[in-house]
């Protein structure tokens, strides 16, 4: 996993709950790394341990933690690390969503060893699309939902996210129906 993901967990816990809680989370997770490097590769188990420990220390379910983490990733971490690039990825939410698959393909080119996830868009309509999410990492669908939710907030566009297929429940990949604008506001 990207170091920036672990760093995002650190920032989320530190900013929302305080530095003491982050130290408690690290201790509980058995993580002794002083500081994460954004573009370095870390073992996935570190991220899972941190999320599990954060869930215990903060008294939130893993699902709540992952969702909050997804939103935080878009609204804080990605803005901090990729702010201009992120805002240039689309003039509005639909354009951003259209561009999301290409963005991750380019990331995969830059960091082939990090095995980033892959997105595909289908059933594009004026106020909806189906986003397909492919990842070899299990249990991150709540994180992805949080990402989409964060994007809606970033573009100040009402958005509903409905998971229509789940890899955790036997599907080949995760699938989300994204609806925005008036449909979502309703």
């Amino acid at each position, binding site marked *: 996993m990207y*170091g*920036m993901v672990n760093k995002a967990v650190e920032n989320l816990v530190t900013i929302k709950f305080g530095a003491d809680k982050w130290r408690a989370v690290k201790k509980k997770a058995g993580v002794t790394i*002083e*500081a994460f*490097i*954004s*573009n370095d590769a870390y073992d996935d188990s570190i991220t899972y341990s941190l999320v599990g420990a954060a869930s215990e220390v903060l008294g939130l379910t893993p699902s709540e933690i992952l969702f909050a983490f997804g939103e935080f990733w878009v609204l804080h971490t990605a803005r901090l*690390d*990729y*702010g*201009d*690039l992120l*805002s*240039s*990825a*689309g*003039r509005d939410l639909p*354009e951003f969503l*259209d*561009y999301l698959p*290409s*963005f991750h393909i*380019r*990331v995969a*080119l*830059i*960091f082939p060893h990090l095995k980033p996830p892959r997105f595909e868009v289908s059933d594009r309509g004026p106020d909806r699309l189906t986003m397909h999410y492919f990842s070899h990492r299990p249990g991150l669908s709540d994180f992805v939902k949080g990402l989409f939710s964060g994007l809606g907030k970033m573009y100040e566009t009402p958005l509903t996210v409905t998971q229509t297929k789940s890899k955790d429940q036997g599907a080949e990949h995760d699938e989300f129906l994204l609806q925005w604008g008036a449909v979502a506001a309703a």
Partner: protein
Amino acid sequence: MLTPAQFAKLFPFHFVLDREMRIVSIGPVLARLCPRAVVGAPFSLTFALHRIGLENARAFDRDLIREQQATLFIFKTTDSRLLMRCQVMLLEDPERYVFLGSPWVRRPNELAALKLTLADFALHDSTVDLLQHVQTAYVSVRDAKELAARLELQRDDLQGMIEFANAPIVGVDLTGRIEEWNRAAESRLGVTKPEALGSNFLARFVDRGSRASAAQLLAEGSSGRACGDLECNLKTADDKLVLMLLSGSPRHGPDGQVVGTLMVGQNITSLGEYRAELEKQVSDRTAELEKANDQLSSALRAKDDFLSAMSHELRTPLNAILGLSESMVDGVYGHLNEKQTRSLNTIAESGHHLLSLINDLLDLAKVGAGKMELDLMQVSVAAACESSVRLVTEQANKKGITIGVALDPIVTTVVTDSRRLTQVLVNLLSNAVKFTHDRGRIELEVHGDTDERTVAIGVSDTGIGISADDLARLFVPFTQIDSKLSRLYPGTGLGLTLVRRLTDVLGGDLAVASEVGVGSRFTVVLPWDPPTHSGAADTEQAGAKFDAHGGAMGEESGPLILVVDDDLPSQTTVRDYLCANGFRVETANNGAEGVRVARLRHPQVILMDLQMPVMDGFAAMRELRGTPSFEATAIIALTSKAMPEDRAACLAAGATAYLSKPVALRDLVSTIRSALPNNPQP
């Protein structure tokens, strides 16, 4: 062939010029960025050739395009907002110049300034990849700066800790040259940092005697290993020595290589001084203790000497009292009437009581002084019990007391001192007889416990018993529970005290159970090795020994005995008794006279007192043993000295046997007999 719409999607920033340099076609995104660049408008209205490093450049026209078509063209909008990098392609009929390219964007934030999004670029355009790469690099650089700042802070913290630590900290390079020197080092060693830096630590600051260990510490640090707690004497600026407890750890350079050793010191000079002071105190105290021990030893020796002297002084007259009364009762001095005999028996009994008091006192003194020497051997328990009972039988018979003995068949022998065990049992039995009413009963019981590996020998009586309150005073010397009892039951008051102490010496325990008016039970528990096979052989051996000691003595005359003693009553008593038993007797009053008489008369046995005027018994024996004709003559040392070392001294001086005064005359005769050559009977 591509349709115009497909071409436009693939090349959103293209434009096509005719030979007059007018715009024939323009990509949709470029058209959006440059509203004046419409079809038919002159190219120069919106764009100008961007010349890099060219002076007096030619005008942008069809000739230049044709000549430079292999070159990258850079155009700048007239408002200078946008740079376009393009490749040109010539079409001949009609003559057209097709420019393909995209805006020059170096940083993601320029996109927003140009009102561009990533979606404005064709997917094949590597501009977006470049921007993502640049952003990634930016993040990496930011991380690196962040880490560097964090490290810088930690380094500052560490430097502060080193600088202001209360312990001297010294860093040296691989050659021992000082590179770190904190304030505590300055104050402890009196050398400022500028003065210390660059000098060799070992040569300048380590005392010669500590250099080897300090060098070892530096070697360990330079090898990448930590090394702890070495005591080193360091020299201060004014050449005083400071005792430091040094520990070292490796110092690392930026590339991770070991570049030297960092040492932390703890000033333990005061600890060393305290230790020296403590050692001196211990030494002084030890000397005082040794002196006190010497004084104590002297006092003990004086006490032993006193006991020995007292023993001598008390036994000597006793010897005469007992010996003469025994001789008189045996009719040595003629026939006695019944009244005389009874009186003499009373004298003898009193003498024996006095003797047992002296013996008990001496034994107690020996135990107290730790001088009780044990003669450990396999002892038959049955024989010890039997002989003990036999010694009190007469006493018991007088009161009509029955003594029952119950032995445990698995208990054959114990490893102990036979004489002391018998002494314990006789004391307990005598005590039981003393405090048991007439026609009472005493039981002597032996029980072996193979699990505990002990033998319990119990003596129970049907006597007056002891109250629980009085049990605590039971073993206090010279104490009888009730002073009235001492009148009813005469005794030394030492018996039970001696039993307890002897039992301790034998490695055993003594237990008492008693009930007033019912009786008492004293139990001696001794360590025991239960037999793994039949112990019959041991039992027989011990039994045989007992039988031999208990044999009867015959009375015959003949052999010549020389009695050497300066105490005339003793000399007379012995002489008369021996004569009455058929021996011929010569006498001498001191050692010198004894040697003279012996050379003249050649006696078969010499009875030699030890403490005599002119020449004592030791010197006399040594002189006789120096004469070949007396090498094999039996010499029996006969003395009132009764301490353990006396026996060894006698044997060393040449005695064949040793008897302590006052000796029972029958025992003396028995000893003489066994000492005679070939045991001839008188």
